[in-house]
């Protein structure tokens, strides 16, 4: 049976993880490769590496990192952050990434999704959507945001999710900026709406604070995967415990211990 996926997300700057990481057993907690390998060994189903470097030098460092990750770990991983062209994607896939995630560039130039799907296949094109529930002239609506969720766009989230699927995205990474960082749980209703409205997998992100939040997002939220960062980095939730918990609750989970 196809299992629900647990995905730790690592923010990387100049080749190193930036969010505080609290792993005493790691030689170098800032080493993005070592941390990824640890998560893989713990049973993470995939990894996401987000490059938050702004400089050109940083970008080539990131490519080097992607290569080292691919050489080291034997589970799939997605890379994202600042990807805006076919050439960017080609370099990252060639370095060994399994999928790429595009966000602002897809908003600026939706045709890029079509181009990437045609060139590399939908299976490796993830479109990340940062969304926030805000007041608009039509009342409160879910609106796509860019720039780390700070800048609203003209796009409404639910039709945009459908559009990116129709253009060839193979997966959605949906981050609710309303719940992100709150540890009060994922945006269940919106995630469920988008998951049921489309026919591609949805990775839910933003708001995970407890193990039951993952249960909720896989059941009520209809998500295919759940992503989180700091609760894993700070060991508030250990991945093996989380997977045991979800499996005990009868969800299809890949157990590795």
């Amino acid at each position, binding site marked *: 049976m*196809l*299992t629900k*996926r647990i995905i730790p997300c690592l923010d990387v700057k100049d080749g190193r993880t930036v969010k505080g990481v609290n792993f005493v057993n790691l030689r170098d907690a800032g080493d993005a490769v070592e941390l990824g390998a640890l998560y*893989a060994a713990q049973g993470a189903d995939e990894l996401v590496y987000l490059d938050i470097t702004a400089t050109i030098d940083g970008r080539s460092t990131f490519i080097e990192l992607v290569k080292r990750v691919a050489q080291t770990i*034997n589970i799939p991983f997605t890379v994202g952050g600042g990807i805006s062209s076919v050439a960017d994607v080609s370099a990252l896939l060639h370095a060994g990434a399994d999928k790429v995630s595009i966000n602002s560039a897809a908003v600026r130039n939706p045709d890029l999704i079509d181009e990437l799907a045609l060139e590399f296949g939908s*299976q490796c094109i993830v479109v990340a959507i940062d969304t926030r529930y805000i007041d608009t002239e039509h009342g409160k609506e879910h609106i796509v945001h860019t720039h780390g969720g700070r800048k609203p766009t003209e796009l409404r989230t639910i039709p945009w999710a459908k559009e990116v699927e129709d253009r060839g995205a*193979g997966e959605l990474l949906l981050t609710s900026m309303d719940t992100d960082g709150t540890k009060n749980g994922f945006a269940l209703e919106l995630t469920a709406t988008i998951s049921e409205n489309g026919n591609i*997998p949805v990775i839910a992100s933003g708001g995970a604070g407890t193990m039951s939040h993952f249960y909720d997002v896989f059941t009520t939220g209809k998500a295919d995967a759940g992503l989180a960062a700091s609760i894993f980095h700070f060991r508030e939730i250990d991945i093996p415990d989380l997977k045991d918990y979800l499996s005990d609750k009868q969800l299809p989970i*890949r157990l*590795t211990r």
Partner: protein
Amino acid sequence: MKTVIIKYNAGNVQSVMYALDRLGAGYLYTDDVAEITSADKVIFPGVGEASTTMSYLRKTGLDKIIPALKQPVFGTCVGMQLMCRHSEENNTDCMGIFDVDVKRFPADSGMKVPHMGWNNIIDYKTPLTDNIPQSAFMYFVHSYAAPVCEYTVATCDYAFPFSAMLHRDNFYAAQFHCEISGNAGQQIIENFLNLKS
């Protein structure tokens, strides 16, 4: 031992090479017919679309070379589908090593397509699964699949039960991506490399 990864227009196979590196296995990545036919083991990977990859194989003559190989050959993902008789993906005639037709997962099944993620395989009947735990999880990404047939040596279930692995004579194939299927996937690659030529 000489292992060859067949080079053709089937997308990114970098992770396959890294997987062999992790096993300490040397390999050549080539489309050279002499190198392929003289190899001890041949890996035929693939990420891509059936008709474009198949027309490339026809153009280069690899569509005749591969089915005639005598050493162990291991096709993965699209590589496996191209070893079947036909694919529904753009109505493509394939190499016919396995007498089975590849079907699309039906859109009306209520299941998301592609089938993406970790799914378990069962009913192993192949040396490639030696030392793999029962009902092991493998990583799949595909929209088309070969139904269960006489060559099926491991089964997976999504919209319908389908062939996770095929075997006939010296030809082996897996629908999933061994190279990113954790330790179990790595064991399958190792088992292939350890087959007697």
